[in-house]
């Protein structure tokens, strides 16, 4: 759920006109349908319609320009004939929205959408002196009855970083800094980079994308067909070879599917991957003081990442636990639009993973169901955290922004002043305000929770993380 879906928008936008004065107050018949849905029967006495249209005509008369009359001199009757419909419609609209504002004020509601209005379709055919009667249908912000959110039991996974993981990370670093060096008189093997010219021929003709010159290809990367790779293995610099590659029947290019291509390949160069030696020099290239320093910093980074992950998991669980002991009423439209969002996201993800469409079709129902559950869970968590904030009187003060700015500086190495200016931008400010607010609310729950630490392995941490996201 996104931040701007919050509740005040509708009310604030309408309230800008200031208080509306009714000649005779409208009457409301409030009917709560459950799930945050309201149906309110409204009757606005005719005196309001008359008064409202009177005012509008007066305004119109002042500056209406009608051919044959100087500005402001047109007779009232002519205006009524010309603008009657528009005035009626506008007056009605004004009255309806004024009535809606009055309703939410007197009933203290937080609508999340503009109401559906029923029963005003034929307003132009009804006499002016009949009362306006219509039904407003709208939903209000989710409601939550918080359970006891103090003293919740949470297990926090703690990962002790071992030397093995540090070594692995450093090994990865070496891989990243790997250099390819030309070797003469060697046979190409896996992980070598070969620079090749090749020409592919199908049915005696070259085909698009089948030829290249000085193309660097890493053996074993599997980007080309395996017959192609096989042929290259063991080849020496300067070797010229040919190989046949049968394209599969379902190859993406229809012209080539099922045919056999003959490639002529010339090996120009063989480069072998060499990893940098683990020495102080290597550490210095990476901006560290020495190898020991590198090891220590990597270990610290890993530890920090792991404990952050553990903390986040614990916070997530804490919020879930609060959700579990609380009861909610969620507006359907909110759940549905959010579920739709997640559903689309999931579809996009599956398409990116190249899951065949038939497969997706088959699982469609499940995906929808999961998306809905996901949406409900997210909204509940969101609402619960906000409600805790309200219940505990949490406010975001300047010092919090200060802290956030420092955190940004720490994280990104940004200049302090720039960080401050970044936070002071209007939209960023309100964005961070909500974020900090929620962080503080979650922190409150954590401070009051009984947190137990449980030592886990890397794999277990990954697994738990995935489960939490599922």
């Amino acid at each position, binding site marked *: 759920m996104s931040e701007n879906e919050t509740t005040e928008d509708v009310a604030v936008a309408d309230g800008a006109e200031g208080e509306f004065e009714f000649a005779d107050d409208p009457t409301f018949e409030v009917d709560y349908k459950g799930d945050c849905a309201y149906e309110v029967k409204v009757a606005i006495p005719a005196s309001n319609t008359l008064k409202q249209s009177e005012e509008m005509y007066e305004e119109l008369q002042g500056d209406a320009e009608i*051919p*044959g*009359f*100087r500005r402001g*001199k047109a*007779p009232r*009757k*002519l205006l009524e*004939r010309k603008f009657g419909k528009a005035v009626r419609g506008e007056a009605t609209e004004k009255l309806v929205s004024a009535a809606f504002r009055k309703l939410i004020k007197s009933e203290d509601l937080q609508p999340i959408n503009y109401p559906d209005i029923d029963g005003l379709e034929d307003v132009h055919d009804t006499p002016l002196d009949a009362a306006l009667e219509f039904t407003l249908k709208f939903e209000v912000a989710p409601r939550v009855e918080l359970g006891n959110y103090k003293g919740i039991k949470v297990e926090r996974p703690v990962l002790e970083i071992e030397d093995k993981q540090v070594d692995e990370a450093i090994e990865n670093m070496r891989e990243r800094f790997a250099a390819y060096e030309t070797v003469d008189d060697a046979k190409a093997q896996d992980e070598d980079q070969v620079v090749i010219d090749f020409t592919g021929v199908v049915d005696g003709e070259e085909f698009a994308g089948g030829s290249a010159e000085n193309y660097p290809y890493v053996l074993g990367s599997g980007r080309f067909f395996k017959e192609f790779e096989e042929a290259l293995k063991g080849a020496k610099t300067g070797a010229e070879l040919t190989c046949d590659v049968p394209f599969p029947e379902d190859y993406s290019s229809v012209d080539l599917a099922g045919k056999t291509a003959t490639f002529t390949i010339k090996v120009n160069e063989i480069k072998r991957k060499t990893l940098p030696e683990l020495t102080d020099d290597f550490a210095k290239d990476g901006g560290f003081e020495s190898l020991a320093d590198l090891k220590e910093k990597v270990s610290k980074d890993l530890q920090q990442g792991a404990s952050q992950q553990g903390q986040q998991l614990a916070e997530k669980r804490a919020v879930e636990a609060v959700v579990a002991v609380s009861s909610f009423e969620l507006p359907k439209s909110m759940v549905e639009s959010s579920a739709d969002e997640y559903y689309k996201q999931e579809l996009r993800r599956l398409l990116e993973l190249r899951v065949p469409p038939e497969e997706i079709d088959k699982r469609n129902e499940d995906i929808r169901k999961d998306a809905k559950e996901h949406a409900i869970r997210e909204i509940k968590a969101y609402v619960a955290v906000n409600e805790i904030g309200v219940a505990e009187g949490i406010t975001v003060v300047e010092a919090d922004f200060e802290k956030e700015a420092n955190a940004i500086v720490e994280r990104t190495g940004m200049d302090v002043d720039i960080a401050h200016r970044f936070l002071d931008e209007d939209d960023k400010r309100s964005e961070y305000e909500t974020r900090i607010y929620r962080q503080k609310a979650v922190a409150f729950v954590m401070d009051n929770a009984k947190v137990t630490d449980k030592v886990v392995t890397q794999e277990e941490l990954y697994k738990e993380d995935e489960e939490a996201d599922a």
Partner: protein
Amino acid sequence: MSLSPYQIIKRPIITEEAQIQATKGSQYTFCVVPDANKHQIRDAVEAIFPDVKVTRVNTMNYDGKVKRQAGSRKVGRRSKWKKAIVTLRAGDSIELI
């Protein structure tokens, strides 16, 4: 061929001036066919508004304005028309708007 009342009286002319004449002197202004004479206009008004009696008809002919086509030298003319100011018997009135 005689013209029907609605063919003679084409439309009322509703302007500020006509408005003033209507309220001050029971005089109503219409656009009428140029061929119609005062008798025909009187009869037509009395046929369309059965409750009124016409005491006097003043007419005036307007020539159509010359209009030029934008961007070319073509010259045309709007049709000519006749304005009729009809005076009613004192106390009679017509609702035009």
